[in-house]
């Protein structure tokens, strides 16, 4: 393991999702040098994995790829993917990040993204980028529009057969690649570390993830994506075209017993969007959204909701208490209807859970910024400057400081860039 080099820049952006990309672009466009470090194999974050986005129903990839490409090609931006942030410290006017580049087992400089390794690899594994619904190989480019287009080997599944190394035209496969350390020093940092979703795996009322045909909303995004696992809408258990699909809202939020007492903010809108896309794909299917309150608060969102109602999507006010797998893959939804007969049961072919939104990254032990009771990064001026943390010179953008939809995230990323550039201007004046 080498002690590694040091890279110096004006601004460090932690996270290469839409928040980080936008913040980086807004800084770089002003002439500041920016380094983005990203924990994943590709930049693009959650957004690049989505099908279409509300309320315009633009294809998500079409909105994300231009930002990914302009960041990747920007003269003032350097991107490091597949990295782990070991520490982020601030001392006077310098921010120092110690970073570990994890091994891809493929030399980034040599790989030309031709995928010959992927074609040669004999090991089939479930594709995490397709919700696990389709197969991929143990060495692969993570997904079609990933940036960078560099293959990575999955050591958990690789059998070291050597076929990929033999197939590689540039000799890029390196089974012995080691983690590398490097240091980034900057004047300011923007934390854009995003969110993760809770898993149904530890939710007994939803079957602990064992009921067939109960999937998460992110899995549904993949099913609906234009380049998704099935190229059409099928339920995963038996490939049947579902006639009846249910969305369970607040399946992990607004409920202290699930550890997420707050509202996850964008689930109502994506459920409505998915319902609309489903009713386009399966015009005869019954689609029901079980909800507590529909939170369609953004620009054009309420109109989107009303359109969905007019399309015949059913909205049932009621809290879902329990899911039960029945024979033949049907799922029984037990719920307390707010209107009508109280406790009710309805059967559906496919159930989609809107899980809770939690922070993707915890600064604990890495960086001295503090978090709130909700574990998201705490902001100290929530009204006048929602991007300020309690660590001077370190700003936050997007879902790192609480669930936020894409529109709000992009605005906040611009705001973080503005705050960071003013901070940079001020420290430059101090010399």
């Amino acid at each position, binding site marked *: 393991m080498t002690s590694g080099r040091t890279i110096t820049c004006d601004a460090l952006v932690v996270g290469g999702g839409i928040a980080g990309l936008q913040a980086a672009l807004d800084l770089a466009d*002003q002439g500041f040098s920016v380094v983005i470090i990203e924990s994943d194999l590709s930049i693009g974050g959650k957004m690049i994995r989505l099908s279409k986005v509300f309320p315009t129903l633009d294809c998500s990839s079409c909105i994300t*790829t231009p930002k990914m490409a302009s960041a990747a090609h920007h003269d003032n931006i350097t991107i490091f993917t597949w990295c782990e942030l070991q520490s982020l410290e601030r001392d006077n006017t310098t921010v120092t990040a110690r970073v570990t580049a994890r091994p891809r087992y493929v030399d980034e400089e040599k790989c030309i993204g031709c995928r010959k390794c992927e074609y040669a690899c004999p090991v089939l594994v479930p594709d995490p980028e397709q919700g696990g619904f389709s197969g991929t190989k143990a060495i692969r480019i993570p997904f079609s529009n990933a940036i960078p287009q560099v293959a990575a080997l999955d050591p958990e599944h690789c059998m070291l057969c050597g076929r990929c190394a033999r197939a590689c035209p540039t000799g890029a496969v390196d089974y012995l690649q080691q983690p590398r350390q490097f240091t980034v020093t900057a004047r300011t940092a923007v934390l854009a570390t995003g969110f993760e979703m809770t898993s149904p795996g530890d939710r007994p009322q939803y079957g602990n993830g064992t009921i067939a045909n109960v999937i998460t909303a992110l899995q549904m995004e993949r099913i609906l994506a234009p380049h998704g696992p099935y190229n059409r809408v099928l339920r995963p258990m038996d490939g049947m075209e579902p006639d009846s699909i249910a969305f369970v809202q607040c399946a992990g939020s607004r409920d202290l017993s699930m550890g997420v007492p707050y509202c996850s903010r964008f689930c109502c809108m994506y459920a409505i969007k998915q319902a609309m896309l489903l009713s386009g794909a399966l015009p005869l299917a019954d689609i029901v959204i079980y909800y507590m309150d529909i939170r369609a608060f953004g620009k054009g969102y309420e109109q989107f909701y009303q359109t969905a109602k007019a399309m015949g999507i059913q909205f049932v006010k009621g809290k879902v208490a329990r899911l039960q797998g029945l024979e033949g893959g049907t799922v029984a939804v037990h719920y307390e209807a707010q209107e009508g007969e109280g406790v009710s049961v309805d059967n559906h072919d496919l159930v989609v859970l809107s899980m809770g939104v939690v922070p993707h990254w915890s600064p604990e032990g890495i960086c001295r910024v503090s978090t709130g009771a909700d574990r998201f990064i705490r902001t100290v001026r929530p*009204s006048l400057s929602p991007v300020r943390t309690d660590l001077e010179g370190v700003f936050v953008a997007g879902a790192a400081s609480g669930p936020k939809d894409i*529109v709000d995230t992009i605005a906040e990323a611009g705001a973080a860039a503005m705050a960071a550039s003013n901070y940079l201007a001020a420290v430059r004046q101090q010399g």
Partner: protein
Amino acid sequence: MSGSRQRKSDRVGVYICHCGGNISDHVDVEKVRADVERIPGVAVARTNMFMCSDPGQELIIEDLRQGIVDRVVVASCAPSLHEATFRSAIARAGANPYIYEHANIREHVSWVLHGDKATAKAEKLVAAAVGKARLLEPLDPIHVEARRHVTVIGAGIAGMTAARLLADRGLEVVLIEKSPYLGGHAARLDRVAPTGERAADLVSELAEAVLEHAAVTVMTSTRLAGFDGYVGNYDLRVRPVLAGPAEDRNGYVPFHGVVGGNPPELTIKTGAVILATGFRSYRPRRGEYGYGDLAGVVTLPEFIRLFSAAERSGDCLVLDGRTIRSVAMIHCVGSRQIPGIHEEDGDGRLNEYCSRTCCSAVLHAACRIRELFAGTRVHDLYRDIRTYGRGQEELYERASKSGVLFHRFTAEAPPLVEPGDGGETGDFPLRLTVRDGLTFGEEVRMGVDLVVLATGMEAGDIDELVAMMKLPVGTDRFLQEVHPKLAPVETSVAGVFLAGTAQAPMTIGEACNGAAAAAVKAASLLGRGYVELDPFVADVDPALCRGTGDCLQACLADGALEMVEVETEEGAARQARVIAARCLGCGACVAVCPTGAIDLKGWSLKQYEAMVDMIVADIPDNA
């Protein structure tokens, strides 16, 4: 038409995108490729799953670098999404980005057609694009000096935030406000939900910052009277707001007097404009939930003002000497209106949107009442509680814990507010009836002393500004951004940005983020002291211009064309000349030139004629 200056390219590269099936599920992309490759002038035609991805772009770059192609056509989604992507890819290959033409075969083909018809239409559109591409010429952006100066219109929270940030960033800022005060609507609040901060503190902090900042000039009681110029170089005429009807009058104004001289008018030379014109609080119609007819029905802003003046002692809230034993707060007044259910306003409009901030504002007020006055009952009548943001759900919890009574109604069955009749609901001046969704649709009657209407936000009264600056307005009547994700604070007018609630309902925090996002765009635009403009301007062919001056007559811009004396081989002659930075690129001159001497760069008439020729021509069929 001579077309003397133009040589057709015969090295057009055509790149056709599958769009991951979005296109290739309906268009036979391979057939398009094979057929298009035989069109004269096409050097190569290629396909890719995602042409916008790096490997897709790499195909184009490689062909340009190898010299295989010198003009590029990409057939993919709408140009609004990826035209810029491909132009920048071409630039990365070291070529001129304007040798590019886009064929829209997704929105205009594969999403509206299927089968052979889709494939045939895609071929025609690609062929037309090839026809144009063969005539494209390299262009250079127009370099325009830009003033490092921004004018912010509106001194509410968003406007003051933008002004302060830009001044800190080193730009000169003028902040214009039509009222005598800084602070906008926030100054009419007491405490801010959900943080509980005092609005007065927030307004004062920002106002102090902008008033004391050496780089900010604050102009209150000032309005915009004229808007002229172009990005980087706008001239804004501003005028004081006068109290009477003197604005447009000279001499004696009945019942006012004689206008004392001309109100001073000032021209601000600025590089960019940020619109932070805010919102207007919804005024309920007379009789809406009894408003204006029944005493004790007030709007939330009215209530906030009354409440802030109330004594903080006693068991019950007392407002204006009236003891409030029970208050009902009704959500969604003037928001979430539904055609066929709600009554349209005088102009036939409905506010179909959610006003976003009212739920938390109501809950905050409800908590304050319950926590200070245990004897005052609070009923909260809502459709959906939208406490979406950080700290907001906690506010909802707090309201429940503090004993606020919730009732849920539907848009179809809104609560009824009537005068109390002393009957079953007791001796209250008002009686409220609601079908309560929380008790399985039971009809609930309650007596109350006060009804508070949670009125929403409406677009501000800025019709004059909209007309003057030609601003885009959405169906919700708020100012419209170019795209909610790709260009969320940009308007279709270059160098004019949106901040805060001029764009949509927002909380203070969201408005500050919006303002800062607008500020960062203005800082990027003007930071270098120059901007680069699209080169799509009129261009005169001196070989053809006979100096008729028809183009000057037709020109829609001020001073974009002029007649100059030139020396030609036949001696002195008059010819038209274009002043590029002022040319709007509309092409009005093109249509009137009797000799076809003037054309629009990048969008020329000859190129359109070539496109039509390709559309009517037969494409050689592979099949």
